[in-house]
């Protein structure tokens, strides 16, 4: 009976996932990165709601006036652009992920229409990981940077990582587990090597006995 080579879709969780690659953890950037977009949007919406609620108290010109028509049309187009831009940014926030698997770390920078970037680094190439958490705000809300030192390449900085302590420990744990697994065949090899060595000694002994 032929073995089914193609895995079921349940085992593939992201595009580009390899065979036998298991997702250990994934995270998105900290919510702090949304504040520069969120605050102006909330302010504008609050102003708009207050204006609409108290529209009766304003003495507005007739909509037949061309200048007022232009003003209303511009305000509507501007508001539509603002709403779409804000929600696209929000959705983009959710589409930008960092995935830790048993083989590699993958950073997916994707947006709905414009970007589709992926950057991954194999665990074996990671030499060291540094956790950086500078500043009072970053310490208070639990956000930091993970600097991944890669052999023969520039360091890779994962910015705005939530709970950097946890992810730092997790990455180190995965690396340790992988390196322990990698040492397993080496041990076997050394055993095999010692067997070969004993065999060679026995042959030498026999050769000496024959000479005697």
């Amino acid at each position, binding site marked *: 009976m032929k073995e089914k080579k193609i895995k079921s879709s*349940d085992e593939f969780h992201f595009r580009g996932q390899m065979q036998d690659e298991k997702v250990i*953890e*994934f995270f998105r950037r900290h919510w702090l990165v949304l504040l520069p977009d969120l605050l102006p949007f909330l302010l504008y919406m609050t102003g708009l709601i207050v204006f609409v609620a108290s529209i009766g108290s304003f003495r507005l010109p007739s909509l037949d006036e061309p200048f007022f028509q232009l003003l*209303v049309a511009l305000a*509507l187009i501007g*508001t539509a652009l603002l709403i779409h831009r804000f929600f696209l940014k929000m*959705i983009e926030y*959710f589409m930008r992920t960092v995935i830790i698997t048993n083989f590699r770390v993958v950073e997916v920078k994707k947006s709905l229409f414009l970007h589709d970037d992926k950057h991954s680094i194999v665990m074996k190439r990671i030499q060291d990981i540094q956790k950086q958490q500078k500043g009072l705000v970053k310490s208070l809300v639990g956000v930091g940077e993970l600097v991944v030192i890669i052999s023969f390449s520039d360091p890779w900085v994962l910015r705005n990582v939530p709970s950097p302590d946890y992810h730092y420990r997790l990455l180190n744990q995965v690396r340790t587990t992988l390196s322990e697994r990698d040492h397993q065949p080496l041990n076997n090899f050394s055993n095999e090597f010692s067997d070969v060595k004993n065999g060679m000694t026995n042959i030498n002994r026999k050769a000496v006995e024959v000479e005697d």
Partner: protein
Amino acid sequence: MNLFWGTIITTHMVSLIFMGLSLLRYLAYKKRNTIIENGYSMLLGFIRPDHVVMIYVGFVLLYTVGSMMLIFYLSSL
């Protein structure tokens, strides 16, 4: 008056079509990415991407209806 109404209707149509396209793109993305959400992936620990998309749809519909009602109100002045 015709140019004004034409601009308003075009704006809303483009807005709704753009939202529909965004929704389709998001659903296609969701189909390909099935990683189970956890506390570190959700916004503030409980907001899922589906929630944001639902708010987006609601917001755009509310904006479309609300702005039309506002224009009808202004034209009645």
